[in-house]
């Protein structure tokens, strides 16, 4: 019996810009993808994972983080370059890879019978653990219409003082999945939830932009099902947020409403009311809802509370 925690996060509305070192001439571009036939901006899963790790590093909660960000040196510092998923929360939750190719396959072809003697692991030097937390790419809820701000560097002016920045006033949505059984320390599920509802800054260019990535609306699902079935379920039209696809999947029986925790701004909408009517756990306060879900997780995983 395996429990999975799935989530779909919708951020607040803000002005997003990015500075990933990729420019077109003197324009700092945003990442874009085609989404439902239109151009939307996007933030990578790696950026969100980085922000979660940084939250654990800087939160006053005694999390032990292996890959720490050194602000002074503007670089990562590993506490233990050989990794230790028992000690360090990021090694356990986000996984790691020290990539030196293995010299042979992890399983030999004839090794299909589990009763046969297990061979020793191949003598590659790969030290790897797949991340237990999967995070999807964040996608804007509205298409990008091409806004650019023009700027000038302060102080002495030169040939490169004038530059432009692509800016998108929007919300982002992204999903995540976690199977607590795979954690060395299952209680870290709680730290993941705490982190994801507290992400303050994701993606670059924060010397100029503060884009709050904490959830304005949040849907969580605690289930035995293999797949979330509600990724990218938020739709925005004229500033109104709806979740028609989520409601459809609950109504047709693909999602058991008792497994759903619907919280934040979406709770106080007609769609929130409809989900509550269908039997979902609907609460306005994100912190309150996650606290209640954490209690359920502690019970189901039989963790020491």
């Amino acid at each position, binding site marked *: *019996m*395996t429990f*999975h925690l799935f989530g779909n996060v919708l951020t607040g509305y803000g002005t997003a810009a990015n500075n*990933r*070192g*990729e420019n077109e001439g003197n324009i700092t571009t945003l*990442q*874009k*993808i*085609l*989404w*439902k*036939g239109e151009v939307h901006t996007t933030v*990578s*899963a*790696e950026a969100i994972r980085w922000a979660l790790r940084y939250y654990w590093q800087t939160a006053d909660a005694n999390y032990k983080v292996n890959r720490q960000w050194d602000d002074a040196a503007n*670089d*990562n*510092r*590993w506490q233990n*370059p050989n990794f230790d998923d028992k000690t360090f929360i990021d090694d356990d939750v986000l996984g790691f*890879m*020290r*990539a*030196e*190719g*293995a*010299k*042979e*396959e*992890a*399983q030999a*072809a004839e*090794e*299909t019978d*589990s009763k046969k003697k297990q061979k020793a692991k191949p003598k590659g030097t790969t030290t790897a653990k*797949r*991340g*237990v937390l*999967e*995070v*999807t*790419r964040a*996608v804007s809820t509205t298409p990008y219409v091409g806004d650019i701000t023009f700027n000038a560097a302060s102080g002495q002016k030169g040939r490169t003082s004038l530059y432009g920045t692509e800016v998108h006033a929007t919300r982002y949505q992204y*999903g*995540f*999945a*976690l*199977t607590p*059984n*795979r954690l060395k320390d299952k209680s870290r599920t709680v730290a993941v939830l705490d982190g994801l509802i507290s992400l303050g800054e994701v993606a670059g260019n924060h010397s100029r932009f503060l884009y709050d990535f904490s959830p304005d609306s949040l849907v969580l699902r605690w289930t*035995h*099902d*293999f*797949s*979330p*079935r509600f*990724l*990218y379920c938020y739709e925005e039209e004229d500033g109104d947020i709806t979740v028609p696809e989520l409601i459809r999947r609950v109504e047709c029986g*693909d999602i058991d409403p008792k497994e759903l925790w619907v919280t934040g701004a979406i709770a106080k909408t007609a769609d929130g009311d409809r989900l509550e009517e269908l039997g979902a756990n609907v609460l306005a306060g994100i912190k309150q809802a996650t606290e209640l879900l954490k209690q359920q997780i502690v019970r189901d995983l039989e963790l020491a509370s």
Partner: protein
Amino acid sequence: MMFSLQVEVPIACFRQSRAREYAETYPVPPPSTVYGMLLSLVGETNRYRHCGVELAIALLSHPDKSTVIRTFRRFKKKEISAPENARPDYQELLTDVQFVVWLRPGNDTHPDHLVDRLLRAFRDPSSIDRFGGLSLGESRDLVNAIFPFAGARDDQLLQWLTKDEDGLLTLPYWVDHVGSRGTRWLRYSLQAPAAQPNPVESAWTEIKPS
């Protein structure tokens, strides 16, 4: 016995086997990728376990292709934080990937066929001991939904992936994780959308390492 599943993946990249700095994507998930996802679904970590099983794949959607830049990690220096170990490269992404995969036991000699295990998994998900977000391709490319295929709607056409000696798509059906000597490819064509409800014989691919 035949069993079919509908799969929805919002964002994915099926990196071409021979792509280098520019990570091009195949337009359709290769059989080896789909097989790996199905093993993950039932919690099977030994990919040789169900060799011989046969798959047929048909696209339900017309995925859009985009290009993003991202950090790729590679091994150049032992020092993990060496800047040479990471560099930005372009990657193609597909959005709105929806397809159907048909399975039949074929030469799957394991007493508990993959088809049977999948049927059991959908009857009682709580009986499955699996781990990790279910993904297709890269681990962050999560599968949003997978469920038994109830047949195409009247307005839905299928794009069948069929074996074709003159096809323009060369897709892996088995991947060697140490170098590429053991990787096995076949040539395919992606057929024009049609109301063909069941796989023709040329759509079936046997998953095997040789």
